[in-house]
């Protein structure tokens, strides 16, 4: 049906008064809005003119208990925004997981597909068999990105995550501090694979 695609909602004139306005109200008033990270941990600034443009703008790994193990976004100055984006996307992830709960374990598709589109971004999800979630936020202007590429990026992410879990010094449930993982995420944020 033609209407259903529009329900996804890209074609409509959008409201100007959405989340961005009010959320600044307290940002200036209370605590620091953006967390100061040590400069060494920042990835090199991605150059937009480096050919095919950036891919993911935010990559997050979320534990089974729904708290972040790893979250990294490219515009680091507004990291909290991505925290909110990823956090709210968990509702959809939960819903999708519970919907496919009835399916057989081995037939289960790990890739959850598009979780939801926002004005500027698309949010994709992926869940491992151990219920660890990967969430990737992609600039919605990047139309070159196909579903298949997203899928392969998630697979790469999953492989890298598996490597971390193989590290005997990594305590499952702790935040991920791994250079290899950082590099891999950086590569995803930099260019098309």
């Amino acid at each position, binding site marked *: 049906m033609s209407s259903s695609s529009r329900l996804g909602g890209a074609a409509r004139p959008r*409201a100007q008064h959405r989340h961005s306005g009010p*959320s600044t109200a307290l940002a200036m008033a209370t605590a620091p809005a953006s967390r100061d990270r040590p400069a060494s941990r920042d990835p090199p600034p991605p150059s937009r003119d480096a050919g095919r443009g950036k891919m993911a703008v935010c990559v997050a790994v979320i534990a089974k208990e729904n708290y972040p193990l790893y979250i990294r976004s490219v515009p680091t100055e507004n990291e909290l925004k991505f*925290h909110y984006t990823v956090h709210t996307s968990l509702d959809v992830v939960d819903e999708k997981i519970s919907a496919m709960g009835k399916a057989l374990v081995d037939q289960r598709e790990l890739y959850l597909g598009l979780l939801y589109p926002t004005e500027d971004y698309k949010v994709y999800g992926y869940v491992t068999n151990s219920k660890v979630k990967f969430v990737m936020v992609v600039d919605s202007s990047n139309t070159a990105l196909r579903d298949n590429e997203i899928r392969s990026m998630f697979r790469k992410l999953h492989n890298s995550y598996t490597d971390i879990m193989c590290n005997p010094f990594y305590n499952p449930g702790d935040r991920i501090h791994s250079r290899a993982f950082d590099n891999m995420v950086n590569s995803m944020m930099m260019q098309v694979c």
Partner: protein
Amino acid sequence: MSVPDYMQCAEDHQTLLVVVQPVGLVPEESFFRIYKRISAVSQVNVRDSQRVLYIRYRHHYPPENNEWGDFQTHRKVVGLITITDCSSAKDWPQTFEKFHLQKEMYGSTLYDSRLFVFGLQGEIAEQPRTDVAFYPSYDECETVEKRIEDFIESLFIVLESKRLDRATDKSGDKIPLLCVPFEKKDFVGLDTDSRHYKKRCQGRMRKHVGDLCLQAGMLQDSLVHYHMAVELLRSVNDFLWLGAALEGLCSASVIYHYPGGTGGKVGSRRAQGGSLSAEAGNRHRPGALTSNGINADTSAEIGRAKNCLSPEDIIDKYKEAISYYGKYKNAGVIELEACVKAVRVLAIQKRSMEASEFLQNAVYINLRQLSEEEKIQRYSILSELYERIGFHRKSAFFKRIAAMQCAAPSIPEPGWRACYKLLLETLPGYSLSLDPKDFSKGTHRGWAAVQMRLLHELVYASRRMGNPALSVRHLSFLLQTMLDFLSDQEKKDVTQSLESYTAKCPGTMEFITLPDGLKLPPVPFTKLPIVRSVKLLNLPTSLRPHKMKSLLGQNVSTKSPFIYSPIIAHNRGEERTKKIDFQWVQGDVCEVQLMVYNPMPFELRVENMGLLTTGVEFESLPAALSLPAESGLYPVTLVGVPQTTGQITINGYHTSVFGVFSDCLLDNLPGVKTNGCTVEVIPALPRLQISTSLPRSAHTLQPSSGDEISTNVSVQLYNGETQQLIIKLENIGTEPLETLEVTSKTVNTKEKLYGDFLSWKLEDTLSQFPLRPGKIAIFTVNIKVKLDFSCQENLLQDLNDDGISVSGLPLSSPFRQVVKPRVEAKPVNPQESSKAGDFSHVKTLEAILNFKYSGGPGHVEGYYRNLSLGLHVEVEPSVFFTRVSTLPATSTRQCHLLLDVFNSTEHELTISARNNEDLILHAGECQRMAIQVDKFNFESFPESPADGTQFANEKQLEEERQQAKGLEINSKLDICWKIISFHKYFVEGVLNQLVLEHLQLAPLQWVCFKSKFNSVLLVLINLMTQRGPLLRSNGPSALSELII
């Protein structure tokens, strides 16, 4: 049409809209009381039929929305109830005029109206009128409900007539074109005779009739009409009305499928009525057709069985309808409301994913510029809908935005209270509870970044609300629970703002109750500082209570017939892990040691840190400490005084950090090591402090039994000197000192000591007892040091080998043989022999004086305290007798005793003996002195029984005899030395053995004294009493005993 009604749901399509409004001055409270009573009449069974009418009451309805009444009839105000207050008859015409004005506002759509007049009495009220009801007051209006029912019935009659009127309109007759306000200008000049136009009119009218049927409680008929309308309108591409027809179809199907309603809040009421109406509709349909004479062509065109949509179709049709609405910018409100209705239906169907798509769409619907209040309403309703479909995080997100909107900078008067209230409602969505106990178990598992943000916002909102206690509570919570996630800079910022808040309003341990009943539990700072271990300390040794040993008590405590059993021992061990095996004393300062560390990157000042206890009244003496930045484990001792007796349990500690008072209970602290927290407090005991006339000593004694010495004193004395030690006993406690026991123990007993080293008379002291607190008693101890005056054994040996000096020395051979092996045994004690010959060797004597004292209630309970005084005496040599010999005197009963005396001091001293002039010795000088003495007859002393029963007894007896003999000799000789500036001191003991044999009477006893190195052979032959020789041999070890 610009004001959306976010509360709408599908079943509202079957309701009649009635507006209830006040006219004139009506107290708000009274109005809403009446309004409540009126709105209770929300469904009415119409007389003579089984149909049910549903009424939707509004006290406020924008007239511009009313203009869309033709589009969807449930938007049309069909009834008006006006409530007015009229006290006098002369106001009446004016009031009635106002009522008419009010009617005109909705005049075009009203079916009927009523006026309720309160307070008017008299002839006007007597006139019977259908549209006006008079009530004397707001309390006396029992017939209101009845009036309303009548009113609704009158509405029904109009509705029914309109329905029948429209339904029987034949196509081809002049059907008016129904249109929405913004369409009106579009149809100007259109060809009204075209087929297209007529179809459009027909379709719209069908849809309208469908609406009316639905309102009139004829569900099946409405479905039929909607289906027809859809067909007609689709063919002419009249999308807005097609959307409306589809939505009508959906609404009717929803009403059929979900009699419980989709709105949620009025579910139970609708459940009953809804099912009834559905059944009624089913059963009634054929009858309705015939009795009301609806023409049969409606049922002929569309099959009856498939009229109602399936649940899946409902959603599809909603989607379609919304997409049609979306084509018209002016229909934004309609579209938004349709989305909301669809989401409610999907929530019932538990299809969250699709519902979220509808909601996502609703988010994007752009209405005209909304006022701030409308924005808040919009975000709140989005939040509510997300909550309904189980998207708690999304719900919390929108609620938070609504909260932010309440305090947006563009609002002249920010509603911080509302903002705060909404923020609180977002807490579950961020899986955050405000109870710190939920965070005490293990590491924090939550989305810290967003939780922290929310807490910051709560802090800020509560501060702006003017409730500093709340902001302190939230900020404390933030600091306590999110400490691990705060950067160093953030920690600094948070603590700084916390300190500035607490300057105005210190944080407490009270629950904070919010106006809506939510209770905020207190937040104890268990991480500032972090406590790693808690250890109860015993009292210092001198203050430790001891239980007096009673034979009875000992036996009772072990309830076992066995002297030893491993099982019992095991059980006791277990008990001991729970309970501490020492006691505290009432009224004495008791200590608990905590190991703490500071996790903050700056110095942490902890004030007013004290203990929390139960069981015993406890006076905690708080401490203030300052922990360096990120300190390691740091010991802190908390002290307090138990005021009563019994079991005391240390539950935790209290602190004041950054102006926040916290009570930290040990039970809630993870990973704290303790050695047990319960200890017994025994009744008060007195405290004794001793001070002496002697200087304190740096030398500490190492007592054998493990108890500690509280005070050590030392003194330096010459051999033979005596000195008084005056001990001041001061009762520094609060209880009277009643009993005192003094014992002494000599440690280091290597030296041979003659006479009593320490002697005292306790009676003098005890006569001052009981000693009141603060009083002092004097206790005198005499120290008498009398070590060996003979130089060393080797010197004496020389003397003995001197043939001249010994009278009657020749020894018979058998004795010699006995001697030999003793001599050979000499190297057994090489240490002592190696020391020999050191004249200036300073000897030390050490003793411990134990004061056992008790008094007050503790004494009654059988406890005492033990205080020890260490005494360290350095004995310097004074005089030595290097040689002893005798020369026979003129009389056989007398002899000359020759002594070589050596002055080892640095002073000049005199030696005197009885019947002899003083001999002056310069420092380091050695002279011989001769004393003429009578020989002794020891017969007067008790002899050992011939048949000595036991060796030990015999030995003992022998010792006694020796001692007695020594005393006798001493008193005879009375040798004493004197340093000119000092007192006179007596030489005692030394000469006993040396001189003994020389001075005894020869005929009676033939005594041989043989000393070689350190072994002594003593042979006594009593010629008088026994024929054979009695041989007694003492080795070096026995010798010392013998001498003492």
